[in-house]
């Protein structure tokens, strides 16, 4: 029935072949023009799994500009130069960093905050001291503590630093401001590097390096912008004096470097593939019209892109990239038609003979891509639509248009046949080759059972070594640690700060105060500051002031302090009383720089308050629990995110693979109509899987996401090989199936297998999977499938395939 239907359709088109051709040319031309109107989306959200935590984390990084930070370390390498020389270099460098690329550049903080805190009045203490702090104060109002403190102060006031100690002791004999200073110091840990502020700069411990933190004006996902930023920064760093060295950490460098490596790889592989295709078309096939075969997938992708855009409304850049590779599969249909036309000497007859297995092959391939609809990744849904349309279009063009333009009459097939001779329909399968296939497959199966999954998705980052080395130097030098961030988002600032206060208290209890860097202990919400102020007043006016006056007078006498020695302290204390209001801190210029690191306005309105902690497993667990107790908060953790991201990706690809395997098996069974032939047709699919896993394990590699996605493509190809060869065995027709399968495999290896020459790990993984998988599928289909068919089915003559 299929043959009759197809024959009728083909003949009808033959009668109007020029119209069909013009229509196709028009479609391709219109689609080519339409490409200019297709809007491509570079949003990474399209290519990540639907996991609320991942999506929220990515959104946080995008909106908070954290991913766009550029860290630069400038260090002295000449012992005759000192830190003042270094400061001059850094200041000069900062002034040469173009505002086109950097919106904000910081190389330190002023000592203004510390100065104000140490010299200022008691009001900051009154507003920020928690009940625990007040308990500490209370414990210090004792004869023992004051006596010890004054003895120490006396000694210090007689020493070289006496000038400062004198005013400090007089203004703060209990060292209360130092409780605040300690809290301030924990804020510096929020940046995740070991810095010492000296001369207003972020110095390393040995004072030999200064860190510059810059906000890039270019998004880290902007490839062209990243390239410009990379060039600009390298240009000004190259111009630094010889006595300094530099190292940089910037996500932009990864973007640019990956792009660079991929470009280099593509140049190399395109050169190899181009030479290979030319040899294949003009030497091996020996017919320039074979070029048409290679144009078909391109035409199909261009038309399919327009149709997909019309259906979906948007397309991801990544999807277009992947689809172009996947559509390469559809080249097979043209090859089969071309060779069948050559073998039979009658293109119409040839195409009619191979039409059924081609349709079955294409439908199983469509089944493979249909599996992508089961993905949690929106981009993969787009990929499914685009690939399925591409494959079906390529099939239609190959079967209905291509044969119309192949000259009838048997011709030579380049090196394979001789002029005037009928091309040979090869058969390489026998007991020995099947035994060899089985042996190799069993050996590789042994290795395949030990395959390991690569959990870290970042292992497919292809950033160049010099950039990674520079980052490693930076991290070693600055003791760079990853920070987890507890984010509170609320409509108004005070509500956000109030939640932040609660979160801080819980975090301190869970992981200890030294591990928590938050504004809460220093500048809490107004509500909390008013509470603190009331407690402060009650404390001192409830008799503590009088008690301290008595103790200081008594102990001061012993240590030869004058009667008026502590007047500055009590004057300041009295001034801190009787205030009923507290000032908003967000507009305080002296703390703006530090405050801004923790509090920010959000793009769509509302405020965001951050709390930082070490991104370690022992800490992020309890912090995650805290965030779950507060609905307006969430935890951002690189460690968790990496795991979630890798886990979600692997889980997604794992589901895809399972669905694809199921569909391939089910469709093959449906079309073959019996279990034995289904098993034979699927032998290349199984062989490719075993050989890929076995070879990877044998060479010490683990299976990563790129391998898995590439394998789905391999499955689509190998099931075609299996079906074509099984059909050939069943029908016994001489349509050059072995040649066609071989040319298909060679074409795929030239297109995608050459990626084994790539240095980018993702491309290399794709290339190696294609090489091993397609190689294994091809070898098993021509060396084992025909013999297996005969073995299982017996040579019972030719039968029809299931409709």
């Amino acid at each position, binding site marked *: 029935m299929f043959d009759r239907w197809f024959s009728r359709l083909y003949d009808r088109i033959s009668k109007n072949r020029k119209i069909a051709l013009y229509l196709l040319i028009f479609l391709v031309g219109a689609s080519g023009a339409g490409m200019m109107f297709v809007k491509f989306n570079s949003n990474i959200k399209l290519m990540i799994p639907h996991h609320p935590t991942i999506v929220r984390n990515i959104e946080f990084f995008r909106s908070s500009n954290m991913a766009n930070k550029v860290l630069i370390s400038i260090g002295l390498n000449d012992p005759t130069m000192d830190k003042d020389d270094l400061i001059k270099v850094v200041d000069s460098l900062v002034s040469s960093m173009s505002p086109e690329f950097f919106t904000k550049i910081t190389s330190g903080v002023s000592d203004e905050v510390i100065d104000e805190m140490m010299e200022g009045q008691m009001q900051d203490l009154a507003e920020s001291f928690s009940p625990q702090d007040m308990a500490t104060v209370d414990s210090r109002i004792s004869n023992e503590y004051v006596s010890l403190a004054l003895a120490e*102060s006396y000694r*210090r*006031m*007689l020493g070289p630093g006496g000038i400062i*100690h004198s005013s*400090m002791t007089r203004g703060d004999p209990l060292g209360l401001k130092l409780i605040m200073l300690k809290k301030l110091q924990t804020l510096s840990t929020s940046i995740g590097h070991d810095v010492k502020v000296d001369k*207003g700069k972020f110095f390393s411990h040995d*004072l030999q390096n200064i860190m510059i933190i810059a906000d890039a004006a270019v998004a880290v996902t902007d490839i062209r912008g990243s390239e410009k930023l990379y060039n600009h920064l390298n240009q000004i760093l190259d111009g630094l004096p010889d006595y300094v060295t530099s190292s940089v950490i910037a996500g932009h460098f990864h973007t640019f470097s990956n792009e660079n490596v991929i470009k280099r790889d593509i140049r190399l592989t395109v050169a190899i593939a181009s030479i290979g295709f030319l040899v294949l078309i003009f030497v091996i096939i020996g017919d320039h019209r074979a070029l048409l075969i290679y144009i078909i997938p391109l035409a199909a992708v261009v038309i399919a892109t327009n149709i997909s855009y019309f259906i979906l409304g948007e397309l991801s850049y990544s999807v277009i990239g992947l689809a172009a590779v996947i559509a390469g599969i559809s080249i097979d249909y043209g090859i089969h038609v071309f060779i069948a036309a050559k073998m039979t000497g009658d293109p119409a007859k040839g195409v009619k003979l191979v039409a059924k297995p081609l349709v079955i092959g294409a439908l199983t391939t469509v089944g493979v891509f249909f599996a992508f609809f089961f993905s949690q990744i929106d981009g993969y849904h787009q990929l499914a639509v685009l690939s399925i349309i591409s494959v079906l279009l390529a099939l239609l063009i190959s079967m209905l248009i291509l044969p119309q333009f192949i000259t009838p009459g048997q011709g030579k097939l380049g090196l394979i046949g001789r002029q005037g001779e009928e091309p040979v329909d090869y058969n390489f399968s026998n007991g020995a080759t099947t035994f060899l296939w089985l042996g190799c497959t069993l050996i590789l199966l042994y290795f395949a059972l030990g395959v390991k999954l690569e959990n870290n998705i970042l292992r497919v980052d292809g950033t160049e070594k010099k950039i990674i080395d520079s980052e490693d130097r930076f991290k070693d030098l600055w003791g760079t640690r990853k920070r987890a961030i507890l984010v509170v988002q609320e409509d108004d600032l005070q509500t956000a700060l109030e939640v932040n206060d609660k979160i801080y208290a819980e975090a301190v209890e869970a992981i200890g105060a030294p591990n928590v860097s938050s504004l809460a202990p220093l500048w809490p919400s107004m509500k909390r500051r008013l509470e603190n102020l009331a407690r402060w007043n009650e404390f001192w006016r409830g008799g503590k002031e009088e008690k301290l006056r008595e103790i200081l007078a008594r102990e001061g006498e012993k240590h030869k302090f*004058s009667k008026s020695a502590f007047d500055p302290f009590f004057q300041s204390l009295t001034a801190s009383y009787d205030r009923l209001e507290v000032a908003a801190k967000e507009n305080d210029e002296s703390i703006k720089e530090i405050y801004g690191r923790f509090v920010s306005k959000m793009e769509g309105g509302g405020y965001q308050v951050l709390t930082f902690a070490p991104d370690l497993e022992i800490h992020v667990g309890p912090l995650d629990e805290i965030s779950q107790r507060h609905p307006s908060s969430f935890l951002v953790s690189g460690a968790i995110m990496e795991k979630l991201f890798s886990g979600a990706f692997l889980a997604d690809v794992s589901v895809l693979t399972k669905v694809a395997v199921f569909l391939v098996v089910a469709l093959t069974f449906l079309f073959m109509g019996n279990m034995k032939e289904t098993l034979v047709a699927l032998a290349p699919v199984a062989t490719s899987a075993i050989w890929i896993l076995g070879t990877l394990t044998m060479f010490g590699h683990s299976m990563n996401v790129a391998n898995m996605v590439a394998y789905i493509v391999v499955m689509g190809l190998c099931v075609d090989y299996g079906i074509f060869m099984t059909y050939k065995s069943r029908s016994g027709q001489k349509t050059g199936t072995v040649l066609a399968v071989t040319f298909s495999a060679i074409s795929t290896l030239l297109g995608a297998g050459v990626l084994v020459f790539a240095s980018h790990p993702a491309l290399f993984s794709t290339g190696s999977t294609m090489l091993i998988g397609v190689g294994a599928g091809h070898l098993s289909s021509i060396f084992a499938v025909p013999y297996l068919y005969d073995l299982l089915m017996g040579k019972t003559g030719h039968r029809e395939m299931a409709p």
Partner: protein
Amino acid sequence: MTGHTAASAVAAIVLVLGALALSASHAIAQAPAVSSEITDTLKRMEQSVSKLEGISAEFIQHKKLAAFQDVVELKGRIYMKRPDKLAWHVDEPIRYSILITGQIVRQWDEETGQTREMAVSSNPMLGAALNQMTAWFTGKYLSLLEDYEVKLLKRSPIRLQFIPKKSQGMGKAIKSVTIELQEDEKYLREIVIDEAGGDNSTLIFTRTSLKPPEDLRVFEVDALVR
């Protein structure tokens, strides 16, 4: 030592050094003209001291602080040996010492009996403070021009007044530092520090020997614990 006083030491140094840093950076930026007589004098003093292999001297320091009932008199010794040793010992009314060897600083006091050792690089604030101290005692006077304006108060014996250049920073704590040289101009005779808050400290060197100490144990902590 109590926790808060240890921290107060750090804070004190933070303040002083913050001030020094500010004044130094402003000095570089503005570089006001200094009279050639003062520059020549400082250069001569620096050259004179730079020829010395070392110094041993005793000192008496009078501290007039508002916090104390009376003027406190301290007695002690200072030793310097090139290239990198400096010792500051206070013997009365309490005993404490600061010993610097290269980049290592040791502080000892009798009351606690403890010695604290630290690398200058591990505490840039302390390092900078000690750099200032060694600048005064080892005659690196020209470098002080970056931080202070200098007035020549008297020519014989030479008496110079160093005023921190900015009202901010060092100027917040110190009004002026005045030094007077010995008749032969080879070393300091007196240092007077007038603080912004009205406190005042005068250091008078006596029995100055322009030679390094013979007993090098003065630079060691073990010799102190006796």
